[in-house]
């Protein structure tokens, strides 16, 4: 090493250590080569050709690039056991601090349903015109809760898993997916509770119950889609988590969790009610209600030939407190808003649209999630 080189090096060293003007950088523009020490020591060992070409020639890829869709999906598939193990572990750890432990998984939905029944069933009496209101309400609360909890937990999944994301390389979509599966596991328990409640209110077991399986499957796919969507939004817009509770509460009130949308008595702007009925949350709730509850299938407007007299009877006599079941079921003779025969198509449509849009939206920011 020549003396010249050595002195140049120590000059660079001195400069770096003595400059104390304290500014990290000028905001808004890139400073290049401002105080890069001159000299071949920094470029020693670098190849002569441009580095980008050199990297490409040796088969290196940009670190922060997202993989193409197909290989991303393949990676995701390969991590399936991770996703399942992660979901199970999270589910178990969620209640480890509580004395009652896993019992809360059953108690939480029960208490939820109890509160709503107390307020809307007993105090406000929104139950008018709805047969078997308790089962109707509890089904609505549980089904909506599945989507609601999926929304809330996935909106923070990226920020709360940042250490994991920064430590290990894996397709990030595994995390929102795992969180939805956690909620699905929770939903299975809720369904068990629901079955007990439904049976205790006098609903019969029928083959229609099997329809809850495709309905739940479609709802899960829908939840994964929106989960991926809100996971990305939540990771980039911090204000989102402040806004989310209001969005969800509004969504719950317009989705017929507490009252029957189909049985609303609206003369003008009927299309608004139609829209409410085919909104995804209302749709999945209705499908599961119709599968589980005979009283719902029998009272669905449009399910029997229109009869102005019977419909009117339901509107008057059926809405009295303690109305006999005969009048409650007469809503079947009213006109429908959205054709119940199309509900399954809408349910499939929402699920497919949500998963495709959600996946692409999430995948496009794949390289940025470690940023935090």
């Amino acid at each position, binding site marked *: 090493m020549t003396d010249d080189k050595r002195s140049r*090096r*120590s000059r*660079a*060293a*001195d400069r*770096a*250590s003595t*400059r104390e003007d304290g500014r*990290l*950088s*000028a*905001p*808004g523009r*890139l*400073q290049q*080569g*401002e*105080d*890069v*020490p001159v000299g071949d*020591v*920094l*470029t*020693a*060992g*670098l*190849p002569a050709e441009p*580095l*980008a070409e*050199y*990297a*490409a020639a*040796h088969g*290196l*890829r*940009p*670190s*922060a*690039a997202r993989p193409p869709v197909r290989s991303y999906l393949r*990676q995701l598939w*390969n*991590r399936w*056991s*991770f996703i399942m*193990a*992660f979901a199970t*572990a*999270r589910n178990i*750890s969620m209640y*480890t601090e509580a004395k009652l432990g896993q019992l809360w998984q059953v108690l939480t939905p029960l208490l939820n349903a109890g509160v709503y029944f107390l307020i809307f069933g007993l105090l406000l009496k929104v139950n008018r015109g709805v047969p078997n209101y308790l089962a109707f309400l509890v089904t609505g609360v549980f089904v909506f809760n599945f989507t609601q909890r999926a929304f809330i937990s996935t909106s923070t999944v990226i920020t709360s898993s940042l*250490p*994991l*994301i*920064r*430590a*290990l*390389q894996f397709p990030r979509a595994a995390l929102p997916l795992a969180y939805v599966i956690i909620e699905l596991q929770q939903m299975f328990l809720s369904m068990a509770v629901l079955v007990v409640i439904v049976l205790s209110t006098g609903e019969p077991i029928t083959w229609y119950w099997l329809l809850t399986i495709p309905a739940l499957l479609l709802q899960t796919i829908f939840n994964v889609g929106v989960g991926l969507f809100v996971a990305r939004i939540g990771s980039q817009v911090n204000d989102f988590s402040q806004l989310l509770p209001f969005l969800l509460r509004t969504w719950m009130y317009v989705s017929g969790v507490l009252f029957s949308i189909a049985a609303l008595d609206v003369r003008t702007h009927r299309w608004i009610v139609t829209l409410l009925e085919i909104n995804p949350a209302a749709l999945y709730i209705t499908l599961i209600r119709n599968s589980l509850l005979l009283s719902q299938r029998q009272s669905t407007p449009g399910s029997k030939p229109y009869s102005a007299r019977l419909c009117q009877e339901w509107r008057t006599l059926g809405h009295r407190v303690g109305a006999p079941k005969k009048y409650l079921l007469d809503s079947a003779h009213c006109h429908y808003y959205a054709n119940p025969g199309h509900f399954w198509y809408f349910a499939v449509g929402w699920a497919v649209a949500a998963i495709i849009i959600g996946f692409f939206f999430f995948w496009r920011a794949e*390289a940025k999630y*470690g*940023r935090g």
Partner: protein
Amino acid sequence: MAKPMVVVDDLHIVYRVYGAGGDRGTAATALLRIMGRKTRGNIREVHAIRGMSFVAYRGDAVGIIGRNGSGKSTLLRAIAGLLPPEQGNVYSTGEASLLGVNAALLEDLTGERNVILGCLAMGMTKQEARDKYQSIVDFSGVGEFIDLPMKTYSSGMGSRLRFAIAASKSHDVLLVDEALATGDAEFRVKSHARIEELRAEAGTVFLVAHNLEEVEATCNRVIWMERGQMVLQGEDVIGIIDKYIEASGGAPVARDPVTRERLGSTPRVHAKA
């Protein structure tokens, strides 16, 4: 010539920090900001890496030294692909795994579940994870605490377990960010041995450490960073570290002959010595 594993090409990284100074952070000032269409008045840009270029080859162990805030950890995160570059690019082969000091996996879960989950997340099958389990636990030395939640671990125990999990698989590029700083003497010996093995398995290791002896003992190359730029780099590990110590106002360290022999540096007379 050895195969390049990481190519850093004129890399610039800019952090955007929200809510940094600017106004008093009250609701009124936030409202004024929105009304006045001064969009995002309180964003501050921090130019953390300012044009770095280098190539790391297969079998390299690269030590990165520099003062706090000089951009060392940012550089590692960029190599790992966690920070999108503002300008320039980082190219790497396969997967780069970052092992940071705060990389607690899942605090609420037991060490045991963390081991299994970590293995699965790295892409192992269930069977592979189960096979590796015992060796990971043994390597970490966590012992009977393995069935306690990880949040009850001391920082040393936590980082040992994390290192053991990450090191159970051979990585193309392993980035170690002060992760060994909290280990005890016995663990340091073990982790050095493991890093050597990883290098031998055709991997490249980057090591950020304030403990310069650690860098000397592990690395065959050093990059000295200051304010997001390179000051010196090269294979003269001892020479560069001495310069760094000198620049920080310390006296050069006396090294044992074994280290000198290994790093192949000749004794030099220092100006300040």
